[in-house]
């Protein structure tokens, strides 16, 4: 027996450890509830105070219906049927009372239907308005947020702020809130009327409530914790099987099928163990609630009828209590589960407000960049990314004349991309200044900068939609001829014309999947459509295979003509065709010059040159 107990204990300890492990990073609420709620009220709900007020009034009225029925039944039993009194009554005596009772029942049901409809209907409109406003504000905020936010946060998390979280807030500040209030009203009204009918019996019922409430509040958090852990384990199984099935050729090549199955079995067993614990807690809670209800019902009925016998109570009054008790227990049930959920809702409210409170983008300047030539000047620029201690650019100065082609080279982390980030004013320099045509970018409107300087990213972005829609993303008002011209210059036109519906072909998640080279050309076409004076190419060919890379490079050479362009590259072949090469290392310019100059100079460039030359 002790052996079994020890096994059981060890098992439980293991499960606890597993849980702790899983719950380590769960979110907890650390804000001020009052502050968040008052903000929710003042900023979002107050404007709807009229419908909210009326729905509260209606809810209050609605809450009385259960007790009207119970009182009517009491009247029926005591004054119409005269049950258990042994007094014989004739039908004639009973009929008026019966008609009155029937009228009350039918009338109350009518009232219930009307009030129920009205309160749902009223609050629905408030909810719609709330969700619309919150989503719109959040989306606007996202568009205005600093680019750094998106580097810190996962896309999925940001999305669930806008979609799921807002939905939860709406539900809990409208429909659920009214339901919770209805439960409170019903509890208060019920207890009040019951006290009025017979306070001794009522106290007997109320005596069980703390026990009931206690059981819920003790067990519910445990269930919530376990459920979170279960969800996480489940997600873990998803991720694991996705990873392994996705790389099945590796699993096979290393002959690991059996071990993987064993690992999966382990996970599955852990999952089942947790699931059974949830079932134990949940079942236990339901059972406790059931037992308390059963006991209380028994005691109340017994005591009630014992008092009827002693003439201290009428049968109708006992029937009243029999009808009212389940209703009271139901409200306790509702309220205690709310008590647990509401904490999660506060977390949700807090994080939505947190997003709304994020600092916005760089302060826009007043100057509009117009008719620029494309002269770029970096003057003693020093820059840190907020999360890093080491500077990304350290006292960097260089100038690029209009129409010049410049290659940026250097090992990863040298600060190449930072140059682009500052030029497009995604970030502002910490010290020093960046100028385009002599205008300090800090004083310029970011939108106007981006109208003249366009970046083609390393990983090209293709949105769902047609090819034409993707190209036109660069400039909405473009004519079809211009779109085609841009595609031609990006050397994508030929490919597009081989597609059945040509420019109207759907691409992206639900459409034709494009190869890496085609995506690059599409991105290039989008950029070219805007006819930028400054073109920034971020290591555009690194993810392509050798053949495609060579072809894209020819295209790039062509489109760089006649405009200022900076290209980040790892390839000597690309760099040597540029007018100037700037080599960065650890945020500083270490070499600068043409290919001819740098290839014989000791340093990074020559090393790379020799390496790529030798192969």
């Amino acid at each position, binding site marked *: 027996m002790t052996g079994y107990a020890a096994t059981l204990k060890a098992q439980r300890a293991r499960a606890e450890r597993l849980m702790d492990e899983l719950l380590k990073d769960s979110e907890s609420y650390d804000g001020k509830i009052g502050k968040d709620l008052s903000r929710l009220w003042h900023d979002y709900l107050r404007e709807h105070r009229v419908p909210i007020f009326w729905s509260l009034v209606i809810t209050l009225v609605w809450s009385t219906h259960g007790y009207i029925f119970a009182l009517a039944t009491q009247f*029926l039993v005591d004054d119409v*049927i005269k049950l258990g009194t042994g007094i014989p009554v004739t039908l004639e005596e009973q009929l008026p009372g019966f008609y009155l*009772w029937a009228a009350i*029942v039918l009338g109350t*049901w009518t009232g219930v*239907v009307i009030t*129920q409809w009205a309160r*749902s209907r009223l609050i*629905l409109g408030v909810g719609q308005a709330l969700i619309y406003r919150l989503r719109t504000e959040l*989306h606007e905020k*996202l568009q205005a947020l600093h680019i750094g936010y998106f580097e810190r946060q996962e896309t999925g998390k940001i999305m669930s702020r806008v979609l799921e979280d807002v939905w939860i807030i709406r539900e809990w500040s409208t429909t659920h809130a009214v339901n919770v209030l209805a439960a409170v009203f019903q509890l208060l009204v019920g207890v009040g009327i019951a006290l009025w009918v017979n306070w001794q019996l009522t106290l007997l019922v109320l005596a069980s409530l703390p026990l009931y409430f206690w059981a819920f509040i003790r067990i519910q958090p445990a269930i919530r914790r376990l459920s979170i852990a279960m969800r996480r384990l*489940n997600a873990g199984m998803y991720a694991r099987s996705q*990873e*392994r*099935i996705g*790389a099945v050729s*590796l699993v*096979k*090549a*290393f002959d690991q*099928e059996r*071990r*993987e199955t064993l690992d*999966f*079995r382990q996970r*599955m067993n852990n999952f089942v163990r947790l*699931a*059974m614990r949830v*079932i134990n807690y949940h*079942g*236990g809670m*339901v*059972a406790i609630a059931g*037992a308390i209800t059963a006991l209380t*019902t*028994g005691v109340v009925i*017994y005591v009630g*009828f014992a008092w009827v016998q002693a003439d201290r109570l009428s049968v109708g009054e006992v029937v009243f209590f*029999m009808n009212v008790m389940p209703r009271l227990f139901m409200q306790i049930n509702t309220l205690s589960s709310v008590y647990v959920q509401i904490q999660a809702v506060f977390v949700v409210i807090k994080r939505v407000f947190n997003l709304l409170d994020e600092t916005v983008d760089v302060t826009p300047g007043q100057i509009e960049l117009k008719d620029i030539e494309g002269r770029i000047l970096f003057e003693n620029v020093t820059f840190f990314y907020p999360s890093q201690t080491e500077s990304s650019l350290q006292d960097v100065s260089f100038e690029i004349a209009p129409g010049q082609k410049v290659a940026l080279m250097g*090992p990863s982390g040298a600060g190449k991309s930072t140059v682009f980030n500052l030029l*497009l004013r*995604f970030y502002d320099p910490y010290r020093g200044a960046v100028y385009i045509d002599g205008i300090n970018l800090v004083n310029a409107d970011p939108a106007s900068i981006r109208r003249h300087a*366009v970046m083609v*990213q390393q990983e090209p*972005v293709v*949105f*769902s939609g047609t090819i034409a829609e993707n190209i036109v*993303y660069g400039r909405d008002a473009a004519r079809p001829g211009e779109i085609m011209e841009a595609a031609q210059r990006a050397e994508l036109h030929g490919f597009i014309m081989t597609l059945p519906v040509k420019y109207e072909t759907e691409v992206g*998640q639900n459409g034709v999947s494009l190869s890496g080279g085609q995506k690059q050309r599409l991105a290039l076409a*989008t950029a070219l459509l805007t006819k930028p004076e400054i073109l920034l190419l971020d290591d555009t060919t690194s*993810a392509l*295979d*050798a053949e495609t*890379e*060579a072809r894209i*490079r020819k295209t790039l050479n062509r489109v760089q003509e006649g405009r200022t362009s900076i290209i980040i590259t*790892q390839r000597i*072949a690309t760099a040597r065709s540029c007018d100037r090469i700037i080599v960065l290392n650890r945020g500083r310019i270490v070499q600068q010059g043409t290919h001819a100059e740098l290839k014989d100079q000791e340093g990074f460039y020559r090393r790379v040159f020799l*390496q790529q030359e030798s*192969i």
Partner: protein
Amino acid sequence: MDMLKRLLPYLRNHSKRLTIGLLGMGVFTALTLAQPLFMRYLFNDVVEVGRWDLLPAVVLLIAAAPFVASAVQFLNHRIIMRAGYGLISDVRLDMYERILGLSMKYHQDNSSGVLVNRLMDDVSMIQRLITGDTVTLFIDLIIFGVSMGVVFTIAPVLGLVLFVTLVLYVFAYRSFASRIRARSTSYRRMQDTISERLQETIAGVRHVRIYNRELLENTSFVVRTEQSLDHAMHSRLSSVGLGTACTLIAGYGSAAVMIIGLIQVLQGNLQYGDVFAVNNFVWMALNPAIRITNMAGQLTETFVSVRRVVEVLDEVPSVPSAPNAPDLVRDEGVVEFDNVHFAYTPDNPLYRGLNLTVPAGSTVALVGHTGCGKTTLTTLLMRHWDIQGGQIRIDGQDISTVNLRSLRRTFGVVLQDPVVFDGTFRENIAYGWHDAPEHLIAEAARAAELGDLVARLPDGYDTIIGTHGVKLSVGEKQRVSIARAILKDPLILIMDEATSSLDSESEALIQRALERVLRGRTSFVVAHRLSTITKADMIVVMDSGAIIEQGRHEELLRIPGGHYRGLYEELQGQVKESTT
């Protein structure tokens, strides 16, 4: 139904639990239904006739019924859920084993996403079928049947009223439900486009900013949100309508039962306890009535899942090894392709009699344009696919006759897209040999030029890498997969070189690591790098499934107008391009 038969063996494993569970549910339901009847007894035979001596016994029954029911339900629920979880564990593990064992052809036809959905979601649906739907249906049928039966026995008139109420209730539910479903489907569809766009614009936020599209994205989001909320509003309005209608029907129905019943009481045909009990049954039968009529639709959905699961379970691995196949005997690593015929699809043959002999210890560089059949050669060697004619031999042994596991153990593989699993450095390197001694792991890591990187990390080999850990660059990932291959000390190394260009530093590290690994070991390299190609012991130039040239770098260069010469110049051109 045949599909369900396929699941029977799984059910049988847990049949004892399931039987006990169902029996228990029957007891629970009976106890639940008994309470109103005890109440009826209380009113009719105790209170009305003043038999107060019976009161304690009856009250005990009234309290005991739900009390015992709670306990029974608790135990039962446990038993049934345990059976359900046991069942899905079995199904899921069988499926997982099957999926990992299936041929590469199957994996090429079925994306991992689809398979994972079947493994996780569809199996959960089956669990729901066993522990949820079936049990609920069972209970509902009992409650529904008993309520109707009892009410008709006590008072046929009231039974009729109850029946009409239920019919109206179900009818209202169904007519509203279809409207709600249609509306919420269109809402969800709108919501899908919104979230798809949102995902794109958040992940591609730079794209949006670069092209100054913030305002336009806002407008389109607002318009779409408005539209979707419109649908949501309609669906919610229908829900409110449904709720109202249900309250109306149930309320007036129960009122009708009470009124008609009480008229009978007043006339002396019924007793008050009868009406009290019948009214309880009315409220008990409403939800089961709806669930029973809904069951058909729900079952069809579940059966789709069952079919998808059974499909995977029934899939036959296409490259089984013979039951008593001998292990491959490791020798020096001579590889022969002898008149190999192979086609992915019957009407499109790739190899028509391919011959190639690779002496032990030599490095073979496979070159040629995309789609020429370089990679296929290596997958055939590992027997991911079976050939249709000819023989592939390793040290004189036909690979189709040896034990598959012993064959796979012979190879070290470096894939083109290096895979790093979520886990520590150690776990990733020791993937093929999980209890490898520490010094061998470190040795493999050093050989793959990972030593410095690991030494820099505070947790060393225990650093978590992959999705949830330290992000590695492509070059580092490649080195991890090289280390993984080295640790096995394979007889034959197969390497699919990555196409993407790396920064020069990583490039140099990888070249150094490779040189070390390839030396003195039979290796096949699907090559994209000139440096790898020129250093190979044997270059095999392929074009549409045939070997067109074969030899060392200098030999092949000497062939005037040769394919290799053309390829070489093309690759070199990238380096030398625009020198002038």
